[in-house]
Structure formats: C-alpha cells, structure tokens
C-alpha cells in the first residue's frame, strides 16, 4: 500500500518535471532542425558550462524561494566575490586555498547578515536583499576602484575549476582520444551536479529539508511544532549567498576578467527565473532540485538557441520573456485542465455506481 503510493507520488512529480523536460527538448529539436550545429559537441559543451555556472546561482536561490523569501542580492554578490577573488589571487598574491576559504567565509557572512536581519529584526527579505543589491555592487566598485580584475595567463590550476573538462583532463593535453575530447563534461556542470545531488538529499531526506519546506509553507505552524524557524531561514540565506559567492568565483575564472560595476548584473533575475520555470513556487514550500536545473537549462538553451537560430539580437529578450511566460502559463493551464478532467471522470464513475445501486434496489 505504502509502496504503491510512493509510486503514484513519484509519477506525479515526474509529470510536473515532464512538462519542462518536454519544453527543453522541444527547443532543442526545433533549433537543431534550423541549425544542426546546435547539437554539436562544441555547442553542447558550452551549454553545459553555462548551465553549470548559472545553475549554482539558481540552486541557492531555490532554497531561499522555498522558504517563501527572495534573494535579490545574488548578482551583486557574484560581482563582489568575483572581483575580490581575482584581486586577492593576482594583486594581493594570497595562496589559492586561502582565497577560497576567505571568499566562502565572506559570502556566508553576507548570507548570515541577511538571515539575521530578516529573522531577528523581522525585515522583509525583499527589502534586505534589495539593499544588498545596492551595497555589494557599490562595495565591489569601491574596493576595486572600478578597475577590471583578471587572472591573465596564470592560475591554470584553479582556473581548471571553470574551464576544465573531465575525463579528458586525465590525458596529457590534447592526447585524449577524439571521442573523449569531444564529449568530456565541463567542470562547472560536474560541480553543479555534485552540489545538486547534495542539495537534493538535504531537501528531501534530511530533517533540515523537511523543516525548510514546512517553514516555507507555514512558518507559524512550524514554530508551534518546535522548529527553530529562524535558524532554518538563516541557513537558507547563507546557502544562497555562499553559492552566489562560489558562482562569482567560477564566473570570474571562466571569463578571466571581472568588471566590478557590471559583472553579475541581473543574475538574480536569471536565478529566480530558473527556479520559477523549474516549478519552484514563489509562495514557498514547493520545489525540486531537478526542476531547478532543468529550468536553468531551459533559459540557457534558449539564449543559445536564439543566437544559433539567427534571431535578431534585439528580439532575444522578447523571445526569452515569452518562452518563460508561456512555459509557466502552460504548466498552470495544463494543471487546471487535468484537475477538471479528473473530476469529470469521477462524476461519470459515480453516476454509473448510482444507477447500479438503483438497479439492485429495484
């Protein structure tokens, strides 16, 4: 009994994911027909790398969105941490491991501050992180004095995190078999998968995940149940900022150059868009990690498809906006129709039962 129910639930959640997967493959199919190069190993590699980079931000955002909150500071944190990382390694010449520890601590502290302001002073997440958006951007510009930061040609080791690929990296440069060289997976995507698996376990299997979902849906009830909702929320913001910081590092390593004034601008919107397309409800309490990754992938594939299919650069944003809109709307509409159909079916069944019982009575 319990088992079959698990199946039902699984299938149901799959159906939801199914919609996005379908959308994703539709975009891929249509673009591949327009330009077969779209599914070349080179392009898929690129898509995977971008999905990895942006996916990290979306994953962090997802945890906050599941609590019913929002993190508008993600883009600015990307800019701040990205430029600080480059500055510390190149100009201050800190050892790489120290830089890594420092930026993780710094971004976690940022999240901690958000969380404390939201839970202890009861400020709204939107306000706190909006202020963060302004403050960290300004700080990045001030600290870097508006100078572009970059790694030059050095730091190949740490830059492997963003630009490397596996398993081709196990062979000496350029000596991997052709097939492996073509189809090796970019590091950012591998990192994303690793972190996503971890987070999926946290969300679905652990006590923290359960409390996160509960707090997101009904904070009051969760508090009455003895959950430290404050801690739950704070941790969510710490995770979001930390992943944004990690993302900032990877972005800066990948691009190899960081403009403090602009790097990461609007990324919070992409991160949240990825969540929303992936079925995370902004009302809190609902969301799946797989959905978030698929949602991010859709946004990235779409951008890529628009370019490759030769849509004018001016219409790019129009297409992006419309596809997100239609994707989410279709999901809503399908769900409405499915619910109605289910009810109609049960109506017919019940009427049949009624007639039957009448017949047996008479």
């Amino acid at each position, binding site marked *: 009994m319990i088992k079959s129910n698990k199946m039902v639930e699984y299938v149901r959640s799959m159906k939801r994911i199914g919609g996005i997967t379908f959308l994703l493959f539709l975009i891929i199919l249509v673009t591949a027909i327009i*330009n077969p190069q779209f599914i070349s190993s*080179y392009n898929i590699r690129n898509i995977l790398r971008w999905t990895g980079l942006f996916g990290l931000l979306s994953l962090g955002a997802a945890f906050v969105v599941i609590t019913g909150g929002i993190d508008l500071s993600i883009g600015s944190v990307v800019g701040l941490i990205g430029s600080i990382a480059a500055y510390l390694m190149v100009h201050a010449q800190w050892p790489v491991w120290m830089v890594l520890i420092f930026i993780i601590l710094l971004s976690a502290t940022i999240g901690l501050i958000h969380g404390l302001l939201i839970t202890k002073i009861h400020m709204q997440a939107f306000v706190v992180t909006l202020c963060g958006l302004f403050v960290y951007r300004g700080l990045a510009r001030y600290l870097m004095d508006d100078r*572009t930061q970059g790694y030059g040609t050095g730091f190949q080791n740490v830059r492997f995190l963003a630009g490397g690929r596996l398993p081709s990296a196990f062979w000496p440069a350029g000596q991997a078999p052709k097939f492996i060289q073509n189809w090796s997976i970019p590091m950012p995507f591998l990192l994303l998968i690793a972190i996503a698996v971890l987070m999926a376990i946290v969300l679905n299997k652990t006590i923290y995940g359960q409390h996160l979902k509960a707090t997101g849906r009904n904070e009051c009830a969760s508090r009455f149940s003895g959950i430290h909702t404050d801690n739950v929320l704070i941790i969510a913001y710490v995770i979001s900022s930390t992943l944004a910081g990690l993302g900032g590092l990877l972005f800066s390593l990948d*691009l*190899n150059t960081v403009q403090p004034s*602009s790097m990461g601008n609007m990324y919070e919107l992409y991160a949240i868009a990825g969540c929303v397309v992936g079925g995370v409800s902004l009302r809190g309490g609902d969301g799946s990690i797989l959905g978030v990754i698929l949602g991010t992938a859709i946004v990235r594939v779409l951008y890529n498809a628009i370019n490759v299919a030769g849509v004018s650069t001016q219409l790019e944003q129009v297409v992006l906006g419309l596809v997100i809109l239609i994707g989410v709307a279709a999901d809503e509409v399908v769900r409405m129709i499915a619910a109605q159909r289910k009810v109609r079916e049960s109506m017919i069944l019940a009427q049949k039962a009624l007639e039957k019982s009448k017949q047996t009575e008479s």
Partner: protein
Amino acid sequence: GAQKEAVAEKPLIGFITNGPYEFWTYSAAAVEILKKDLNIDVEFLLPPNGLPEEQKRFIESLVTRGVDGIGISVTDPDNVTPFLNEIMETVPMVMFDSDAPNSNRLAYVGMSNYAAGRMAGQAVKEVLPNGGEFMIIVGRLDAQNAIERRQGMIDELNGEPYVAQYPGKMTPNTPNLRLGGGKWTLLETRTDGGDQSKAKSNSEDAILKFPQMDLMVGMWSYSSPAIISAVADAGLLGKMKIIGFDMENELLQAVKDGHAYAALGQDPFTYAVRTIEILAKKARGEAVSIPADKLIDVPALKITAQNIDEVWGKYKAQLSDGNKYLEATK
C-alpha cells in the same frame, strides 16, 4: 543661487565620464596629479550604469556645488545639447572622448570614436587584405561610442572619404552587411547589454554559427577579453583574428602573444590632462589657447605586435607613476 560671484581660490572642476569603466582609471590617475599640480578640486564622476539620466543628475549637483567648469563625455549629443547649452550659460564646459559639436562648448578634447572606428577599419583591411567575414560584439548599440566606432569601421571599409567627426548616420544592424563592394561581410553585430558572460556566450555562438568567419571585433572594453576567452576555449587562438577597442590587460596580452591583431587605444590620460588644464585656467580667468575649430586632437593608437611593448609600458607608467610620465611628456 547657483552662480559663483568671485573667482574661486581653489576652483572646483567636474569630470564626468560615460560609465564606470576601467578605461577611465587612466583619467583618474591624471586627475590625481592635476589636483596637486594645479591646486584645484576635481570631482571625478562615473555614472554607475552609464546612463544620460545619471550624467544629468551629476551635472545638476555640480552646479549646485558651484562648480567652475565641467568636462564631460557626452552620451547622446544630438538631444542633450539644449540642456548642456543651458548649463553652459553659467558654467564653461569642455567635451572629451565624445563630443557635442553643436553645443557652445569651449573645446573638444580627443579623437572621436568615429575616427577610432575608422582606424579599426584600416586594421581590418590590413588583417583581411583579400576580404573576409567578421562580426562585432558590443554591449549596447544605442550607446554613442558604439554607434560611432561601428559606423567608422563600416565607412572605412566602404571607402568613404575621411572625416574626423561622426557624420551622424547609422547603418542599421542587419545581418550580412556587404562592405567594400562585397569584399568584406559584417555577419552580425551582437549585443549583450553590458553582461560579460553574455558577451562570451555570444562569441561562442558566433564561432559555432559561422565556421567560416575570419575575424571578431570587440567594441567595448570587456568585449575583447570575452572574445579571447571564447576563442581560447574553442582552441582557435591564433587562428581566429581578433581586433579590439580600449586597453584592457587581457587584450594587450593577446596582442603581445600574437592572439589578437590589434587594439585601438585611445588616450584617456591625456583627455583628462587637456580638459582639466583648459577648465582650470578658465576658472582662474587666465588666458587659454584653443584652436579656432575648438578641436584638440589627442590621437588614438593602433596597438599591434610592433608597438605593444612600448605602448603598454607607457600605459603602465601612466597608472603607476603618472607624475613622472607627465613631466616627461611636457
């Protein structure tokens, strides 16, 4: 109540750029030196988003502070001129980098972006003497410097007669623009709205879409590093030709390594020196010598493998040891 009655002891000069770009750190270096040398105050303002709205806001607050002169890189000369003229009734202005030719400015310092674009066009001719296909990566196409640079390249390749100033037309962004009678093809101009990673993914997509492409042109300062990064990832370093604007370290390094053909370097350091000198003298009521056409030429440089060491050294000196550099050039 915003006018200053007497000539100030220590004049206040405003210096407004067109955005928060590293490009302007050279000007900032010059400003620091000039403040001491000329005994003036300079307010160095970088519009955070490079918007005309922000420039307007800065001008207004400078006027409120009783500024004695303003230097500005104008974002949209055609339409902003009336507003600037209004300000110039009380505050003298010098344009640099981007001119407003029909305004009542004291002078224009610099080489127009249009002229720099024409230089880039020449570079294209040099690197693709037998013709070829190329594309442009840029942040926004409605920004004045992007319009002028692109138009300069197009006009140069089309063999139009040389003019130093932007003639005010714009070739629409249609795909496959045939230039020079079909010798060169501008495949596309792709924008990224100022997002570096978008610039990189645009470059990647271009490499995929146009395997036959010969050259990529990065038009904003971050565009060329993004192109270089994408080209490196695709394993095409040295094969794909690259031309870029501005003096980002990544671009200069690539020129040095032979991965990029040329960088078009303007001279923001000198822009600041000339602009502020004029304004400071004017503020003290001293005589200023300005050419009759009010144009003070600060030529742009085409940086290639030939002159990279010398030029880069100069740039480094401007930033780190500007004072000495200034004395040397005087």
